[in-house]
């Protein structure tokens, strides 16, 4: 049995990988946020013509493996003349995927806003879009924070699959270093710890955010 020998000189490389992980996660979460909100609004307010296609989208991306989706984008799209860099492919596939999950969380949150809120806004003469912007979404965003935090943390961890399209994110970098030095155990444990620290930092910041924007009488049950 060997002891735990971690070569500290790997750290800068791993930090570089970590940076890419953060970039990919940030980009795909942001993309998924925008698309997710639109999908959720389409589901709730769209009428059949919009709601059904949104539903199909959501079911497709939730019903198929993320890795398959990534490979379709990275290896499949070039057949159609669409050649994206590995980075863009990763962000796009992860973003399209998380959009579907975020859409479901947003839909739940929008539907958790009391019905009378829309009516009151409309009674003042607000258009539907104004009411959604000024009354429904500000409440839905507060309600959604806890489940949305889970999605963010999941995406941070799932982003590791981009190592499979040769990206040197935290996972990819770890794999390369470990393969060159034959110290898989040490390197991957350190990689795991990096993820863990990031996850803890993120969930703490989101908890802080949740407390900051919390309003009496609104929020996830039990957190009031």
């Amino acid at each position, binding site marked *: 049995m060997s002891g735990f020998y971690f070569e500290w000189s790997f750290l800068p490389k791993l930090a570089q990988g970590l940076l890419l992980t953060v970039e990919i996660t940030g980009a795909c979460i942001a993309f998924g946020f925008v698309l997710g909100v639109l999908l959720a609004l389409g589901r709730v307010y769209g009428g059949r013509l919009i709601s059904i296609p949104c539903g199909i989208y959501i079911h497709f991306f939730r019903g198929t493996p993320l890795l398959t989706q990534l490979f379709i984008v990275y290896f499949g799209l070039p057949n159609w003349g669409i050649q994206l860099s590995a980075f863009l492919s990763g962000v796009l596939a992860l973003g399209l995927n998380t959009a579907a999950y975020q859409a479901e969380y947003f839909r739940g949150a929008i539907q958790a806003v009391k019905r*009378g809120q829309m009516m*009151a806004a409309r009674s*003042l*003469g*607000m258009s539907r879009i104004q009411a959604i912007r*000024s009354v429904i979404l500000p409440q839905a965003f507060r309600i959604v924070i806890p489940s949305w935090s889970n999605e963010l943390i999941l995406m941070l961890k799932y982003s590791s699959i981009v190592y499979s399209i040769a990206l040197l994110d935290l996972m990819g970098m770890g794999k390369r270093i470990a393969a060159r030095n034959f110290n898989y155990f040490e390197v991957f444990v350190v990689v795991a710890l990096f993820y863990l620290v990031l996850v803890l930092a993120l969930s703490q910041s989101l908890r802080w955010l949740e407390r900051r924007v919390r*309003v009496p009488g609104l929020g996830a049950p039990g957190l009031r």
Partner: protein
Amino acid sequence: MREGTMDALLLVEDIHKRYGKEEVLKGVSFQLQKGETKVIIGPSGTGKSTLLRCINRLTEPDRGRVWLEGVEVTSRKVDINRIRAQIGFVFQDFNLFTHLAALDNVRLGPMRVLGMRRDQATKLAREELARVGLAGKEDAFPAQLSGGQQQRVSIARALAMNPKLILFDEPTSALDPELIGEVLEVMIQLAKDGMTMIVVTHEMGFARSVADEIIFMEKGVIVEQGPPAQLFSAPRHPRTAEFLSKITELYGETEG
């Protein structure tokens, strides 16, 4: 416009509304003069609230027409948002915007709908909150206010839009008995100040002392209407008498 209705602020004509099999409104017509307070009474489930919501089309009537100062509200061509901005609505369960403090609840409409500047809207909102006796509660969130206070904020929210009339949909029905008085007081003061109002309520004291006219509705139609003195002392229709005696038994004769 119809003959003899030129002076009516609001004209409601032959409103029908059906939910599935049940016809909730079976042709309701009335008119409202500027400055008038009309009180609608009647057993629950007779379409009173539906009628109110049909006036500003929060509920779309199946048939019939509504005019506000000669503009047809029910016309497909009308910008309903502009009409609604002129008609205040006070809900039974307040429906204050949960995520906004009292001041923001009141100034949101003027800012978003009327395009009022923030500082102006803030000044106006403070005035309206003071008018309903809630100076000092500007920063309170709805969940931190009592039901009576919430309902008064919602009246202030309606007032801030400078409406031509205000529709009250059972404004005190969701309140604990000891909180009803403070809301009725505000409404009585509004009536005195010349605000045009339609009030659906079970508060007979309020109806008797404030209404210019009472409409008794049952099963989707107007059974009888007239000044309170007439309805209370000499109802023409036996159903009116029956309802009034029953409701007085239930709610007492409390003067609003």
